[in-house]
């Protein structure tokens, strides 16, 4: 099933930092990597979800020795990867509905267990809408039964596939098509939205982690850790969407990094409901640095700028930093 792709320059599609020991090399730098989701799909330029999914699934493929099934919720990832009759999936892959990926995955896991094939692992994937909103019931059910499923949420903070509408993961003040930048309180309201990693932790499942496409080695590591554990596992990956966020396609990784370095998106791991590690902020930045490069926040930087709103967002970042103790790392 492995499809080899090559860079003209290196004879391989994979580029490894040659100064690194091989054991520290990323899964993606291995020319023999699985290419679980292969090239030719129809994601937008700079799509954070396509990037995150490729790293996550290839790492899961390596961890499972290629014995893996993926279940996908309806959404961008499903649509851009399987325009009939083409498919980017080199692995057994199933899409059923928008809100049921976790339940379908539970059914797959049960079938594999009962037919003596539980060497085959199950990964379910959904966007933030399919996770925090329409898919939350079945996801919570999968968590509380502790079914042997790794559920990955690729969070781009709105319903991007339908054209950028507000979801339960849309941050305050962000402009979407259903929280437009008009009126006295433009953008998404404050005091709303769900923190799914913490909801997942409240189920006391064996493993919950967050990651972003700014630190892909960390993403691979967390997938590898998750795959070493049996039971319900949840991985929440921040994946910027150039189209929906109004950021430049070339800036996807930069935006994700600023989300973590401002403290707006805390990166951590939790085992059995307790936070066990956090990724310290290397160089703390004000939230303004993150907000300014996204058109979904452009209304905050008019004349005069919405300093009160920006301060409110800064307070959210400050609280995250206190809550997860992710102050700047000691030099």
């Amino acid at each position, binding site marked *: *099933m492995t499809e080899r792709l090559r860079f003209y320059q290196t004879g391989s599609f994979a580029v490894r930092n040659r100064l690194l020991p091989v054991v520290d090399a990323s899964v993606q730098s291995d020319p023999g990597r699985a290419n679980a989701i292969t090239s030719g799909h129809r994601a937008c330029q700079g799509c954070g979800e396509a990037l995150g999914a490729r790293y996550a699934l290839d790492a899961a493929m390596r961890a499972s020795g*290629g*014995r*893996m*099934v993926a*279940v*996908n919720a309806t959404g961008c990832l*499903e*649509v851009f990867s*399987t*325009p*009939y*009759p083409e*498919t980017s*999936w*080199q*692995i*057994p*892959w*199933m*899409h*059923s*509905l928008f*809100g*049921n990926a*976790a*339940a*379908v*995955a*539970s*059914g*797959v*896991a*049960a*079938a*594999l*267990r*009962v*037919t003596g094939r539980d060497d*085959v692992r199950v990964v379910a994937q959904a966007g933030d809408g399919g996770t925090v909103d329409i898919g939350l*019931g*079945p996801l*919570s*059910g999968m968590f*509380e*039964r502790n079914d042997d499923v790794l559920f990955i949420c690729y969070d781009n903070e709105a319903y991007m596939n339908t054209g950028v509408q507000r979801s339960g993961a849309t941050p305050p003040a962000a402009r979407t098509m259903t929280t437009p930048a008009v009126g006295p309180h433009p953008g998404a309201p404050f005091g709303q939205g769900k923190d799914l990693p913490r909801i997942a932790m409240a189920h006391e499942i064996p493993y919950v982690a967050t990651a972003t496409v700014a630190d892909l080695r960390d993403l691979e590591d967390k997938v590898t850790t998750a795959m070493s554990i049996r039971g319900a596992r949840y991985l929440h990956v921040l994946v910027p969407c150039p189209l929906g966020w109004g950021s430049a396609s070339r800036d996807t990784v930069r935006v994700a990094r600023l989300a973590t370095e401002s403290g707006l998106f805390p990166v951590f791991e939790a085992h059995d409901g307790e936070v066990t590690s956090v990724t310290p902020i290397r160089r703390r930045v004000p939230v303004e640095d993150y907000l300014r490069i996204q058109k979904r926040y452009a209304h905050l930087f008019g004349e005069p700028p919405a300093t009160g709103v920006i301060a409110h967002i800064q307070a959210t970042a400050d609280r995250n930093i206190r809550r997860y103790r992710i102050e700047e790392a000691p030099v």
Partner: protein
Amino acid sequence: MREQIEGSQAVARTVAACRPQVVCAYPISPQTHIVETLSRLVMSQQLGGCEYLNVDSEFAAMSAAIGASAAGARTYTATASQGLLYMVEAVYNASGLGLPIVMTVANRAIGAPINIWNDHSDAMSQRDSGWIQMYAEDNQHAVDLHVMAYRLAEEVSLPVMVCMDGFILTHAVEEVDLPEQTQVDAFLPPFEPRQILDPDDPVSIGAMVGPEAFLEVRYLAHQRQMQALETIPRIAAEFAAATGRQRDGLVTPYRLEDADVAVVALGSVLGTLKDAVDALRVRGVNAGVLGITSFRPFPLAAVRAALGSVGRIVVLEKTLAVGIGGVLSSNIRTAMADTGTPTTTVIAGLGGRPILQASLEQMIVDAHRGRSADLSFLDLNTGLVERELARTRASRRSGPAAENMLRDAMADAVPESGARG
């Protein structure tokens, strides 16, 4: 083995004999005794090699069934009423994906007003969902249909809904001949999926299909149901050979050969209808009954053949298609379109209203004399309706209709002199 047994337990034990590998369960009356019995069988290890998933909703139940079936497991679930409606999106998805899931529907009314009792509104709402639908006349029939359902589902790669009247069948204790394990094993081979999620042979299931092929995919779904019209009688014959119990599969005619009037119906009311027909024949009214077992696919030719010589048709329905009347009667009229046989629709038994033999006899006599309205409602209490209509004329804020009518009905039930001390 013949036993005095509750319908739900008989069905659960029969399903267990079919060796399901994944059972997804979410409780709703009147389906609960089925999934309770199955959980006891799994937890006590009487039913081995089976995973029992207690899920968080009917939507999750059908979704988990979809995943389990796609991963190659024989899969079962059961629901009713609101539960069936809550899983609808996944119901269509299961048939669209061609997954041979078997589901029992313990037929129950749909609210509002909330009502736990029997009618066919739930299953009828899913008549176009792409599932095969079989309706049981009694508990023996329900038991037999479940065994045949797995065989049929897996042979044509479509899901099958076995519909049995809630409470009337699910909670009735009667003698049932439960199929022996050896009989079921001989009749039902292990599940060989047509498509499976397998790392050794990876496939993508559930891809997006645009206008270039969608019509053809749907056409094929229809063709498979048409194929099932031929498969069902064959499977029924093989079932008869295996168990000695004769089943027609598609339709069940009763005293139709010389009938002037035929009543067509589904489910447990067929028993009362046959009693009514027997009584009327003593009085010289030549009536007969046609029971529809396979509602989807709808056996147009078998219906035409069975009703070809009757003079009048009454379609007795436990569902109401608000705004037109009948559901089954539309299908019967399609079957009989070329014959010109006068066909009327009678709505009866909604929300568990008892269907009395005396009322059925009157209904048949009226039809026999050509006095039936195109659409009528058996034993309708017109007084209740008229009082509510008067209220709505008298006051803009007449209040919730259901509660008003229920209050009137309760008041009517108390004898006028019977002020209770």
